[in-house]
């Protein structure tokens, strides 16, 4: 291992993935621009390009939002239409931002961004308070089981940094959040434009004693969000060198989805149900003593059992029950609606099968949480509870227990397009 004293090395940093939701009007792009700028992640040539464009548009300030507009069509329309990924780091952590558009017609993009996030950042305009949109964002983050949520009350400078305005929004949101599954909530008053409470503590809001946004992002505890109890190892690839040196080597490569695996563990291979013991765990040319999420390793078993891609290795006394009947919340992502009896391809961990829609139980109104049981189809960007029957058993856990073994995508077999995201209920 090279020089550990070099403080610039990113080898020892922590990682936080967070998703931002909101529209240009909420100041989301400005906030991201501010985080990038104040953490010194913006380079001179990038800033120059933005300054030039701002002047060209006749603005009298540098529009930080321009830093995050990626595609030509977005710059032309002045809106974000797709998920964009941004990167910045402080000495403590590296951050990956999934920057998603806020409007209802882009719900699928927000679901996409939230799927990998440890934390969700929802912005509201202090002058407007909670809107239908901010509630919807919180609902989606909760459905996707993003464990940490930050509500940033932005544009505090435009309400004279008034504590009562903040408290009203804070209380209203906290009240609303009790209906959702949000394990950790932080509400922070900020001004993205002026920088108050973003990286530097605001001198205009001495009534606020909580953390700045950056302090919270740097310190929020995410290590315990993983499931370290239920060992789950979806087999991705069988490693067989067929060389003289490793003639008898047979290893099962994959990424640990849950729990801790150790040599000597008694394991079961699903769906066959055959049992064996872990002979060893390899990480490149090293044998390691334990493997845990999200490590990519190669597991060797003591017995010569039949294991292939799509199988799952779990503990004998703690394994998912194989099932062909799936009950899930599904976000539909394409313009042709989802209907009962429709047949699709399903990809779950490393297993691909076909699935048929048995029933659409209800459509969830993401603004009001109302369950509409009348409509028996899901349109684009709609979320509903769906029963599926699969051609082969899936080895799954409830999404609330494990975001890896509890999630799947649906693929239209004719077009090859990903048309839905699913979160398994039971």
């Amino acid at each position, binding site marked *: *291992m*090279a020089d550990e004293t*070099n403080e*610039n090395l*990113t*080898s*020892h940093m*922590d*990682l936080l993935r967070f998703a931002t939701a909101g529209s240009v009007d909420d100041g989301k792009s400005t906030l991201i621009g501010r985080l990038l700028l104040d953490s010194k992640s913006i*380079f*001179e040539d*990038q800033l120059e390009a933005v300054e030039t*464009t701002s002047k060209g548009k006749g603005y009298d300030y540098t529009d930080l939002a321009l830093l995050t507009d*990626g*595609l*030509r*069509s977005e*710059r032309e329309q002045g809106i974000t239409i*797709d998920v*964009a*990924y*941004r*990167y910045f780091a402080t000495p403590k*952590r*590296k951050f*990956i931002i999934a920057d998603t558009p806020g409007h209802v017609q882009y719900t*699928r*993009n927000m*679901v*996409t961004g939230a799927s*990998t996030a440890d934390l969700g950042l929802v912005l509201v305009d202090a002058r407007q308070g909670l809107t239908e949109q901010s509630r919807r964002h919180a609902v989606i983050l909760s459905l996707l089981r993003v464990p940490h949520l930050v509500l940033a009350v932005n544009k505090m400078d435009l309400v004279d940094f008034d504590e009562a305005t903040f408290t009203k929004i804070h209380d209203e949101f906290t009240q609303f959040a009790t209906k959702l599954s949000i394990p950790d909530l932080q509400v922070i008053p900020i001004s993205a434009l002026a920088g108050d409470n973003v990286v530097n503590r605001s001198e205009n809001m001495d009534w606020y004693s909580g953390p700045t946004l950056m302090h919270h992002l740097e310190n929020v505890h995410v*290590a315990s969000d993983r499931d*370290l109890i239920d060992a789950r190892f979806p087999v*991705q*690839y069988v490693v*067989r*060198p067929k*060389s003289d040196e490793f003639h008898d*080597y047979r290893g099962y*490569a994959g*990424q640990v989805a849950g729990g801790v695996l150790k040599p000597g563990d008694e394991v079961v291979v699903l769906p066959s149900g055959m049992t064996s013991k872990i002979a060893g765990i*390899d*990480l*490149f040319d*090293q044998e*390691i*003593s*334990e493997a845990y999420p*999200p*490590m*990519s390793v*190669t597991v060797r078993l003591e017995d010569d059992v039949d294991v292939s*891609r799509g199988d799952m290795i779990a503990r004998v006394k703690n394994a998912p029950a194989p099932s062909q009947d799936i009950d899930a919340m599904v976000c539909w992502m394409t313009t042709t609606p989802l209907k009962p009896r429709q047949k699709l391809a399903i990809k779950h961990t490393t297993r691909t099968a076909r699935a048929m829609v048995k029933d659409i139980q209800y459509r969830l109104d993401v603004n009001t949480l109302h369950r509409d049981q009348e409509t028996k189809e899901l349109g684009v960007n709609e979320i509903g509870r769906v029963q599926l029957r699969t051609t082969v058993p899936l080895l799954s856990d409830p999404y609330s227990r494990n975001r*890896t073994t509890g999630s*799947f*995508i649906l*693929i239209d077999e004719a077009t*090859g397009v*990903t048309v839905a*995201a699913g979160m398994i209920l039971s």
Partner: protein
Amino acid sequence: MPDTHADYRLSQLDQLEAESIHIIREVAAEFEKPVLMFSGGKDSIVMLRLAEKAFYPAKIPFPILQVDTGLDFPEVMHTRDNWVNRLGLNLVVASIDDAIAQGVVVDDGKTSRNRMQIGTLLNAIEENGFTAAFGGGRRDEEKARAKERVYSHRDEFGQWDPKNQRPELWSLYNGRLHEGEHMRIFPISNWTELDVWSYIAREGIEIPSIYFSHQRRVFERNGMLMTETPLNPCKDGEVAEERTVRFRTCGDITLTGCVESTASTVEEIIEETAVARVTERGATRGDDKFSEAAMEDRKKEGYF
């Protein structure tokens, strides 16, 4: 190697490594004929290292493809050959000169060799029937790349349609293709320039010598320091002189500029990168300078 911590924490670099290895294995398992696009630059070297780790102790189960511009730095080719020999790889070379000779691309005297890579590359993919091509692109490099998927779909003309990308959720990648289409795969999408350097330092792997400080005859063009060679002579008003420089990226010799630097170890490069105020492409790549959407346009046509 990931340290085994009592609290089961994995550093961000170990998390990135695990994610990339997962992607590479997924492609090897699901695609009929993958190939790894290897330029000999630092990003493709990191990608190759990850592929080595993904299948160890087995060999990498796919070939590597290099587009030979005829204008590559000899130092980069030297490093490429060392990697190929050490790992026992099957190397496919797609040469622009051959593509011109065969009429696959047209040399009109105005188009840069960088642009001609597109036709040469697409032809090589089609001729060899490759269904997935790994690339070392990173999302932090450029605005258009920031929105590109890890599995980036290409139609039968090799084109990327940025407005019509498949949603990509969790770590569930969709590799469905129709006849004639292929997928570009970007396993180090989430790495930054500093991550790449930190990894090179940690792994102690070979990279081309031009990344380190050396003496070179250079001249200024469009605000960049360019190498003086018979392939890239000075024009009127340009004066070549010897300077102490290094390269931040490896492209073709006529388009890739260098920066003045005394950084002669990976650690010194990391220190320099951490305080750099200009992006690596902005500083040294003539191919991205033409317009704000230069990269987006080339990517749509089938660029790396």
